[in-house]
């Protein structure tokens, strides 16, 4: 009876607790249903040799990163020095998925552009960007129309997938990778998957 006045207080504390927890969550990070599922198959033209294709199957047996990037993506520029540094450490191969290089750039009107011309422009732009900022990728592939991006549930650039030897997606990072997230999250997973061999 005497403690009755505590009831609203307790309710308030409970509600405040929920709200405080909510503040720590990032609504932009939508958990991917693809984690622990087989990576969607793709076969895309390579940036270094557009007449050759890279298939998902070619990566079987390796633990690797699939990094979604584009030259128009500002956050990629922020992430890029870390990727270049990571590629020098020779820990994990990085495959670049160049996402909608031309038509994703808000400053280019790609409507009505023939696919050949768009591909040529994409190659030129992407190569130029990698020459300027360094190329951390074992290979980059061209997702001109963003369809492979949709298959991977990409909704922003950059995004990075960790894929295991059997071609199963093990982790998805949304936004730029930086030192801390690599050391604390990705590296332990990579080591574990490599050991699991």
């Amino acid at each position: 009876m005497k403690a009755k006045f505590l009831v609203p207080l307790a309710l308030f504390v409970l509600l405040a607790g929920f709200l405080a927890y909510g503040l720590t969550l990032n609504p932009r990070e939508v958990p991917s249903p693809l984690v622990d599922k087989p990576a969607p198959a793709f076969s895309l033209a390579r940036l270094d040799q557009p007449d050759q294709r890279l298939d998902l199957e070619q990566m079987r047996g390796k633990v690797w990163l699939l990094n979604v990037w584009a030259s128009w993506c500002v956050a990629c520029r922020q992430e890029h020095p870390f990727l270049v540094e990571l590629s020098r450490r020779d820990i994990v191969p990085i495959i670049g998925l160049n996402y909608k290089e031309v038509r994703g750039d808000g400053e280019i009107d790609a409507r009505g552009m023939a696919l050949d011309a768009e591909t040529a422009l994409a190659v030129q732009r992407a190569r130029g960007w990698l020459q300027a900022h360094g190329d951390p990728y074992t290979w980059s592939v061209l997702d001109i129309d963003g369809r492979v991006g949709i298959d991977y549930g990409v909704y922003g650039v950059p995004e990075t997938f960790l894929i295991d030897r059997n071609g199963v997606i093990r982790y998805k990072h949304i936004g730029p990778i930086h030192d801390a997230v690599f050391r604390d999250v990705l590296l332990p997973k990579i080591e574990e998957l490599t050991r699991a061999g």
Partner: protein
Amino acid sequence: MPVEFRTGAWLRPLRGLAVVVSLLVSGVAIAESVPGPNAQSAMPAAEDAALEARVKAFAYNLRCLVCQNETIADSRAPLALDLREQVREQFAAGKSESEVRDFMVSRYGDFVLYSPPLKASTLVLWFGPALLLVAGGAWLAYRLRSRQREQAPQLSDEERERARALLKGSQPNSEESRT
């Protein structure tokens, strides 16, 4: 594997509204799709108004991942355009609405659906408010009943006599009178 039930029977009137709205909107879209210098060639002209209406109506149920409070029918984000194009192509290829819904959910998760599916992890979401209402109603009923009990005091004959005297305005007992 969580069991999914068909949900949203009571949302059906809303869905009807969405269809009406989308028909209106697509009417405007058709009016605008007359080829002109600004016609978008990236998006095939609406050859089939019925298909277009279906795409629109369906797109109102999907959330845009980029601008999270908009449907992919409303959003102008490039991803929303791409996803609308996917819906259009798959409908044109004869896929059913549930097949296209599965396609979206398998890539973007339940988040892409505006009406969340009923499964173990969303039970609180679906039934929490009703439970709170029932609990509140039960608490209110309990309070009202116990108050009623308190408000019907049993008076002895003596107390009743005293009360009557007080109401008349005279002091029944000399020992309580003022000095």
